[in-house]
């Protein structure tokens, strides 16, 4: 291996990239733009759920009950309606996500110490949204139910309401949200976006860079030159790794200062692992480039191989432990999951190499395998 020749390839590639102004600027704009859009657009908080109420009782108690929902910040009250048949189409047209039916004799039942049933109809098209909506409805119902019970018990036994409450609610659950005290989605999402974007962009840049030479035929110059395979690959990939490492740094600053995500870990450790991860994802691009002949194929293969796993199997949307068995295997095969552990550890949990060393090892092995595969598959004597 000859350093001088590598530098020559690096220079050639650098000039080519810099001279293509659109490509060069997009290589830097793309990650930043994705970070901004996803950061603000990927809020998982479910709030202002549009809903309606059918009040068949029209009493003070039913209005009081309805008010619990109307005043909640999780719900956006769209009005009372007399009839279910009027609301069903609204649900189908996405104007409502839920409605609540207060039955006839609601007040009478409660006054006569009977159970009253409340029906909630929820749009289940988006399953996770339906789950959260149901959770909110239950919380309000339980609180209202508890008020009724406490009132009843205090009347029955002639004790103050407070004492009745202590009897019926002897245990309180104190929830502590770890790693993200205020449960603001954006905090926990921002570090993971760093992972997802660094999985999506480097393979793209790399695969296109190599396949472009194949398609335009300029690779023949390389085949005919004295450059060895490894010299060519190292020189060729270096500028792309450099661009992506720089992007990683910018994304880190954005996560830290634009989104205010806390960074509790060791900066040096994190920086080094990030470089390793970028090398890994660049390697994915390298492998794709060895068997894609056209750039269209390279674009499509990389986007399918990286975007889907970045979203689904990396732990961004769902923790790995909640995945099904098959998907878990899939997740373990992707480098994203290991880097996610490191990102979350470094940002939110403040853990370091002592806990995360295994993930680092896996990433290193991953990079090694990808580059070996790329090296073996790349040949200066192509079969045609």
């Amino acid at each position, binding site marked *: 291996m000859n350093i001088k020749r590598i530098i020559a390839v690096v220079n050639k590639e650098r000039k080519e990239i810099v001279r293509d102004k659109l490509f060069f600027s997009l290589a830097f704009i*793309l990650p930043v733009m*994705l970070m901004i859009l996803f950061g603000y*657009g*990927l*809020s998982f*908080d479910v*709030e202002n*759920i549009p809903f309606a109420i059918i009040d068949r009782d029209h009493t003070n108690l039913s209005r009081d009950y309805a008010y619990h929902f109307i005043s909640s910040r999780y719900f956006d009250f769209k009005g009372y309606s007399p009839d279910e048949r009027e609301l069903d189409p609204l649900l189908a*047209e*996405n104007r409502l996500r839920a409605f609540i039916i207060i039955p006839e004799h609601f007040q009478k*039942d*409660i*006054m006569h*110490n009977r*159970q*009253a*049933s409340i*029906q*909630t*109809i*929820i*749009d289940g098209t988006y*399953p*996770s949204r339906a789950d*959260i909506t149901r959770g*909110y409805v239950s*919380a309000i*119902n*339980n609180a209202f139910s508890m008020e*009724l019970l406490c009132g*009843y018990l205090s009347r029955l036994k002639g004790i103050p309401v407070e004492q009745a409450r202590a009897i*019926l*609610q*002897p*245990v*309180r*659950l104190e*929830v502590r*949200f*770890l790693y*993200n005290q205020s449960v603001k989605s954006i905090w*926990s999402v921002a570090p*993971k976006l760093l992972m997802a974007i660094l999985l*999506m962009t480097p393979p793209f840049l790399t695969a296109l860079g190599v396949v*472009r030479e194949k398609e335009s035929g300029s690779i023949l110059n390389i085949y005919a030159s004295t450059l060895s395979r490894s010299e060519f690959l190292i020189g060729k990939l270096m500028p792309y790794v450099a661009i992506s490492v720089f992007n990683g740094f910018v994304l880190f600053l954005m996560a830290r200062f634009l989104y205010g995500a806390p960074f509790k870990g060791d900066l040096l450790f994190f920086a080094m692992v990030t470089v390793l991860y970028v090398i890994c994802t660049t390697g994915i691009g390298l492998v794709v480039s060895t068997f894609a002949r056209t750039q*269209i194929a390279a*674009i*499509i*293969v990389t*986007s399918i191989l990286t975007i*889907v796993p970045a979203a689904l199997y990396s732990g961004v*949307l*769902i923790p790995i*432990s*909640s*995945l*099904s068995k098959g*998907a878990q295997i*899939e997740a373990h095969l992707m480098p994203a999951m290991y880097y996610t552990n490191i990102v979350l550890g470094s940002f*939110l949990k403040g853990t370091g190499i002592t806990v995360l060393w295994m993930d680092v090892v896996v990433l290193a092995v991953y990079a090694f395998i990808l580059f070996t595969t790329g090296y073996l598959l790349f040949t200066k004597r192509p079969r045609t």
Partner: protein
Amino acid sequence: MMKLFDDHTVLLRGYVWCRQISVLTHKELFQLFRDTLLLFFVFYAFTGNIYLAGSGISLQLNKAATVVHDDDNSLASRELMHRFRPPYFHLHGEIANTKEGIRLLDLGEEMILLDIPPRFQESMLKGELTGVQMQVDTTNSVLGTLAAGYGEQIVGRFGLDSGLARMGLSPESLNAVPNLREEHRILFNPNQDNSWFMTITELLNMITLFAIMLPAAAMAREKEKGTIEQLLVSPLTPFQIMISKVLATMIVILVGTMLSLFGVLQFIFHVPMRGSLPLLFAVTVLYIFTTTGIGLFIATITRNLAQVGLLTLMIFAPMVFLSGAWTPPEALIWWIRLLMKLSPLHYFLDVGLGILLKGGGLMALWEPILGMTIIGGVVFTFGLWRFRRQFD
């Protein structure tokens, strides 16, 4: 006589014009089919990829890994912890101290740590207020919120049951005291089958990806290789060159869509098809047609495929994330909501889910269809205008 002759030429011209387009479309299809790797991945995108998206992906709380630190070791504490059971929770056992639990949470091996204090049962029997601590890993905030919600329900119910028991009332006696009973009805997807939603959104994403990329890439390739010069000196208009690329794209995507819809969605995941399939295909054709406008626009400002790749990603990724599939529009800040209104995929998703799951027809869905048509129309006209102008 003269008049008839004129009519004839018009007819002939029309025929030649259509023939030219059909020949060009053939050429585009040939080019696509000769790239086997590309073809394989188009196939994969509409089958294997959608299968993966539909299987085992869920944003619901599913057997959240739970450990307990029980300082009381009483009947009550054991009863409480065993109420944390599937489908929402999965009890992995007890641990000796809280620190060990926090370590497991740090490692990401467990999601929830339940901490039951000493004298838990005793305080309950005495009627003193006691607290149970629940530490939740909220690195995924949806699941964190859900876990807290379910946890509160379980503990509330446990407290109520034991309170009633001490008052000499059985849990069944709730029928005879004033309280609420809840009934939830989940419409359109009663079993909360996540694969329905996932496969439909993934299919629509793939349609979008190819509708943008294929025409843009085909155009950029002609430019890169210089074959565009041949087309320009031929008796073809820019409109014909463009429309044939759009048609080829349309054919490939429609075949993929059918494969996916019947082969994967219906056959494997049993996604219901409650609405009219002709309407769905009509809307899909309209959507592909208008979305290729974005591809044509990309084609006009790029010179090589590398640029096409980056620009496609830059437009496609935000479209997917802003489609409303992952985030309800109501919860977002206004400028993102505005951007969502501009994404044709947002409307297409409403229509697709509306037809398949909700069984909606033209009457119920005219609004998103109209929105899609207007935005798509503007995009397509703009793409066409730019495309023509670059040849002047």
